[in-house]
């Protein structure tokens, strides 16, 4: 036991002096990640809020054929520009992104309207242009409103109650709360949290195995009268310590930065106060030994520092893969899924941030299963260090 502690203290101290480890574990991951996330979020929210009040640009060809419609659109907030494009020209103009959308009023518009038959309108827009699609949708809504207003007037003119046009009275009742509305954001947040936590241990895992072999200091270490498992356990423990530091810093950075992003302006809020932050760290804790052992095992199989670096880049994806599946498949927590490490942490994190606590049995299974997997991997790493081929 004493040897484990000695190795741990030495690795911890040595890596405090290694700029590369410090940058990734304590600065780059925990601060840059959350800062970037919060910045992007703020930008996106700003854009989303702003576009709702923004005038809706629409180019109209032959607006003189439908003066009432144009007046209605202008009143509704559309910025109407007049063009003389028609048919093919309008299509090309939209394709070339000269206009986001063009509304063409055909010559027979007024005549159709007068005779009570459906009046033709041509709306040219690019559905694949995601940025313009939202505004086009707004234009369609305005047109539909105008159409329904005309219909009512016609019905009234024929002496019929316009209420007959309303066959259904659907009431939309939104049950989402400000917290649940930010779910997608929370998913990304839990992904970033687990990823930066793992990154905190990467360089230490490499340095303690492939790096030590490359420097030629592994062989002298193995000549000492210390069981080899104790050496590797000390190294894994040091990687765990850096991962824990990284995790604490990341959670703290998220907790502070998210206060300044203005989520509530989109009717969202994130439940990330100090008490929740502490529980986030506790929930992620069981994943630390698993990650550290996994990275150590992979790094111990590689021959050089560089090789270890490229393999660990892939390994970082493995524990985060379940999160991606959860996102793509829209998985919801179930007892069986809580047995899957990293997926269970993802569920724990999001449920905590959504303020929808999971049953205690879920939490216990998540922690137990993750710790058990970690213990198996630590044992494998210990066996690996007894192999002779370790010297390379």
């Amino acid at each position, binding site marked *: 036991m004493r040897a484990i502690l000695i190795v741990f203290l030495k690795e911890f*101290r040595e890596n405090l002096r290694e700029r590369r480890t410090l940058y990734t574990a304590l600065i780059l991951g925990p601060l840059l990640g959350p800062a970037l996330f919060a910045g992007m979020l703020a930008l996106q929210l700003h854009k989303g809020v702003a576009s709702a009040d923004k005038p809706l640009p629409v180019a109209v060809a032959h607006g003189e054929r439908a003066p009432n419609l144009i007046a209605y659109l202008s009143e509704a907030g559309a910025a109407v520009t007049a063009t003389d494009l028609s048919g093919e020209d309008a299509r090309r103009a939209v394709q070339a992104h000269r206009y986001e959308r063009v509304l063409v009023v055909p010559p027979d518009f007024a005549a159709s309207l007068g005779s009570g038959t459906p009046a033709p309108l041509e709306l040219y827009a690019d559905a694949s242009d995601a940025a313009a699609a939202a505004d086009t949708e707004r234009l369609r809504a305005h047109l539909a409103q105008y159409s329904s207003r005309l219909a009512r007037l016609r019905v009234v003119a024929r002496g019929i109650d316009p209420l007959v046009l309303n066959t259904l009275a659907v009431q939309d009742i939104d049950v989402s709360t400000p917290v649940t509305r930010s779910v997608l954001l929370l998913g990304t947040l839990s992904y970033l949290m687990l990823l930066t936590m793992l990154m905190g241990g990467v360089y230490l895992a490499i340095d303690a195995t492939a790096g030590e072999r490359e*420097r*030629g200091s592994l062989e002298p270490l193995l000549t000492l*009268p*210390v069981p080899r498992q104790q050496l590797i356990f000390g190294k894994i423990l040091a990687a765990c310590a850096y991962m824990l530091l990284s995790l604490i810093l990341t959670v703290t950075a998220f907790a502070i930065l998210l206060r300044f992003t203005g989520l509530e302006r989109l009717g969202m809020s994130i439940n990330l106060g100090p008490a929740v932050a502490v529980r986030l760290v506790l929930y992620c804790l069981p994943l630390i030994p698993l990650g550290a052992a996994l990275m150590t095992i992979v790094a111990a199989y590689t021959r050089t520092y560089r090789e270890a670096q490229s393999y660990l880049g892939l390994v970082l994806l493995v524990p985060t893969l379940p999160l991606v599946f959860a996102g793509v498949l829209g998985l919801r927590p179930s007892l069986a899924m809580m047995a899957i490490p990293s997926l269970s942490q993802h569920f724990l994190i999001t449920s905590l941030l959504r303020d929808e606590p999971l049953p205690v049995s879920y939490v216990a299974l998540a922690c137990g299963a993750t710790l058990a997997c970690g213990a198996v991997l630590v044992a494998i790493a210990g066996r690996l260090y007894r192999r002779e081929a370790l010297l390379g």
Partner: protein
Amino acid sequence: MIEARGLCKRFGDIEAVRAVTFTAADARITGLLGPNGAGKSTTLRLLYTVLRADAGDACIDGVSVSQAPLQAARRLGVLTHGAGIYPNLTARENILYFAALQGLRAAEARARAAQLVQLLEMEEFADRRAKGFSQGQRVKTALARSLVHRPQNLILDEPTNGLDVMAVRSLRELLRQLRAQGHCVLFSSHVMAEIAALCDEVVVIGSGQVLSCGTPEEIRARTGTAGLEEAFVALIAQGQG
């Protein structure tokens, strides 16, 4: 005392060490001499418990390396090939790390490290980070590290590689001192002059086998050659023939 008895080691199809038997006695400097790739390093690795022998055994002061590798290792100081040390620790911290892992108490370890820094004339660089050390400084640090627990037996794998003349002379002086104190010193080299200048006993290895062993005079007499170098060349030729 280090005794190798019929040590065998194979890596895949290659028989690196074939039934190597020799004894390195206390108060003697024993040299393991052989061309590159003869199996010197593998033999030493079997002795200092980093590799396990496929057959045969070795005893360090009577303790079997196959039966009780940790106890055997405790009686050994080892300077491995290349003398790898930790670049982010100072020379003294490198020594103290090994002292702690050898089980020395903190105060005892500090006193011993100070003593070794003086003995090996490391005062100038003892508290500098090892990043950027010269090969001579690295070897001194690694040597101090391997002596920190006062081992009875010292194994050195090509210790003079990359050292300048002054460093080689002070290393020889140190090894002679250890011999005078009754320690067993075993080192490998492919440099004839090195062996001739220092060794009481020579073990000549070629193609993983012991070709001859004894004092330099005995080996010369046995091969009927004038110098040790001629004897060595004759033995290697025999071994390959």
